[in-house]
């Protein structure tokens, strides 16, 4: 079935488009873009009050398959993505077993094609078993479908191994994504170290634990001239280092999560484990530095770090609860309400952060833009619609969102993947 999207406000940061246009979709691709299009055999979508953006891409998602399907799997994770306006998601390799060999990567690619309603691109491990000791067969993994490499959650301590990984990645021109944390420095911590952790008597994880690793990675990026992507940046020092590295011309990029942009460590006052996440929610000064980085271009990408855990796993003493919160179904509304409507960033900039930039960083050539011949992955937004976040309506298997009950303006109206409507509000 062909689709004709009529009268939408089409915004494409790459071609610097922002005008009312019709888009014709045939065979999963964008066939024509013009102020007035007609088609005989096409389903018509009236987008006259909607924004049509290139499909959003979340490059940091934990889908838990294989091994922890009670938290999430490819089907529910992809449905949550569709509901949240994401047409593509990248799944992190810290599954059980971890995605450190081409067999698992192929499994994910094949199963995703069969079962998932959005595109799923696996990110493979940098080291075998995420142990930080031996490199994985990165070329083999890349051929099997890995779009990037990361030991997310298990940062590589040994700088020599990190150096080798960065150097070897030059063969592939694919990103090395690092969860920057000096695990010795953050050991035992369950929240950001500062006044609030002191008050609550909870062991802290200092900002320095992240900043030290970001600094190391950037120094290694300079040494190796390889590309490095900083995952879920959360600290002021981290932002400063990345800004400096960009000034030097290094191939560095950084992502930030909506929760680090919106919440602070003060949210932990009631010991609610739904606010327990790693990197931890930081103090207000760090949060402000992230917002500054979002505005001035230091940050390239919004990613959710969607980390599902079951209600039972989170319904325990704070220090016993696992780290992580889910973000696929709240990110777009949060960013529209808190940043676009408050004029902190423009809508075009948001689309760049959520679609164009991740596509370019990951080398997804036919995604992240609206152009004739590009994949028909589109996210339609209703900027005015008010939503109340209700975890009980989530498509995700998990419910661990700290945003339950939040009233937000701006919502996903429709998600189109390869010319197919996979979500409509």
């Amino acid at each position, binding site marked *: 079935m062909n689709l004709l999207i009529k009268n939408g406000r089409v915004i494409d940061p790459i071609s610097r488009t922002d005008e009312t246009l019709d888009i014709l979709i045939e065979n999963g691709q964008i066939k024509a873009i013009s102020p007035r299009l007609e088609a005989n055999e096409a389903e018509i979508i009236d987008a006259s009050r909607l924004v049509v953006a290139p499909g959003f891409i979340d490059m940091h998602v934990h889908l838990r398959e294989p091994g922890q399907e009670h938290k999430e799997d490819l089907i529910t994770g992809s449905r949550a993505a569709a509901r949240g306006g994401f047409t593509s998601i990248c799944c992190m390799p810290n599954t059980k077993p971890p995605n450190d060999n081409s067999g698992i990567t192929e499994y994910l690619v094949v199963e995703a094609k069969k079962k998932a309603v959005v595109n799923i691109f696996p990110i493979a491990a940098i080291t075998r078993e995420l142990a930080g000791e031996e490199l994985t067969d990165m070329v083999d993994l890349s051929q099997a479908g890995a779009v990037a490499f990361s030991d997310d959650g298990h940062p590589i301590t040994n700088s020599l191994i990190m150096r080798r990984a960065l150097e070897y990645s030059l063969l592939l021109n694919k990103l090395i994504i690092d969860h920057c944390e000096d695990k010795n420095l953050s050991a035992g911590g369950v929240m950001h170290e500062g006044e609030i952790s002191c008050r609550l008597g909870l062991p802290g994880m200092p900002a320095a634990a992240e900043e030290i690793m970001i600094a190391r990675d950037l120094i290694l990026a300079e040494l190796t001239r390889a590309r490095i992507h900083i995952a879920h940046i959360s600290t002021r020092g981290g932002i400063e280092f990345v800004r400096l590295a960009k000034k030097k011309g290094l191939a560095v990029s950084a992502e930030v999560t909506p929760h680090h942009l919106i919440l602070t460590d003060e949210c932990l006052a009631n010991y609610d484990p739904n606010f327990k996440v790693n990197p931890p929610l930081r103090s207000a000064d760090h949060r402000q530095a992230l917002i500054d980085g979002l505005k001035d271009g230091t940050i390239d990408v919004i990613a959710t770090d969607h980390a599902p855990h079951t209600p039972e796993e989170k319904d325990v*003493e704070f220090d016993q609860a696992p780290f992580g919160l889910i973000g696929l179904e709240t990110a777009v509304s949060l960013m529209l309400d808190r940043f676009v409507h408050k004029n902190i960033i423009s809508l075009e900039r948001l689309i760049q952060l959520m679609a164009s930039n991740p596509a370019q960083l990951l080398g997804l050539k036919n995604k992240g833009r609206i152009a004739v011949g590009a994949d028909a992955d589109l996210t339609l937004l209703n900027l005015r619609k008010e939503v109340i976040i209700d975890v009980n309506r989530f498509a995700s298997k998990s419910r661990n969102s700290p945003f339950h009950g939040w009233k937000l303006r701006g919502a996903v109206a429709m998600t189109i993947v390869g010319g197919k409507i996979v979500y409509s509000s």
Partner: protein
Amino acid sequence: MNPETPLTFRHYHLLGIEDLETSEILTILETADSMAEISRRDIKKVPTLRGKTVVNLFFEPSTRTRSSFELAAKRLSADIINFSLSASSVVKGETLKDTVRNLEAMAIDALVVRHSSSGAPHYIASFCRSHVINAGDGTHEHPTQALLDAYTIKQYKKRIKGLKVVIVGDILHSRVARSNLFLLRKLGAEVVLCGPPTLLPLEFSKLGAKIEFNLDKALVGADVVMMLRLQRERQKANYFPSIREYRQLYCLTQERFKLAKKDAIIMHPGPINRGIEIDSALADSVQSVILRQVENGVAIRMAVLYLLLGGKERESSD
């Protein structure tokens, strides 16, 4: 009773000092006065809480605090059962929520909770109907200890406002230090925290404390010196290089204690490491009020139980 401070206690639980109003703290201290009187009688028992059931739910061993609550409940004629769980349920893999729900199914009125996780009583209070009393949570708070300390200080000093209280030791991991800091600041005392920088984060200054790493300097002019118990395991985590060096720097010796005011008192939440944080002779000296603290603990806990469990009836019969 002072008419300017009417008896008010509006909290349903006692989770910490930090969220108490100053008037509520004063109410507990005043109520403890009449409770102390009961413990001095021949027959140390009143029927006030007859028919109420209190559960001591202890996930960490603590004979002292547990017995103190037990005596307090018994002197008010409440039924009390002890539930020590370090060995039983936790091993079976039962969640804290299930444990509490099982206890609640037996129609209890109050839970006295000691737990190694900071915030565990807050978590319990979020779903249970009974009154929750925090008997020490992780490295967060130990409200009844701070209350009995304030009560003891008042007995000796007749006031709290304007006093200089020095708390010495492993501040970082001390729930006693936190609760005392919150309480003493609310009542207008100057609180000086003292210990090695590894165990005394500067963030405490944002909570209203003065920070002093040098014990001699900290002690000058002190009205109250509160020594904390040092856990030897901290040395293995490199918080200080050796017990020997710790003792040199932070043990309260007779020589050092002369730097405090002449009538200064020495406190310790117990159990004491004699010869590590305090000279044995000092612990037993006339200026040591350590045993009075223990005695007052019962009165304070009676007051807390009474205000949480019996307050309503009293109001209606007044």
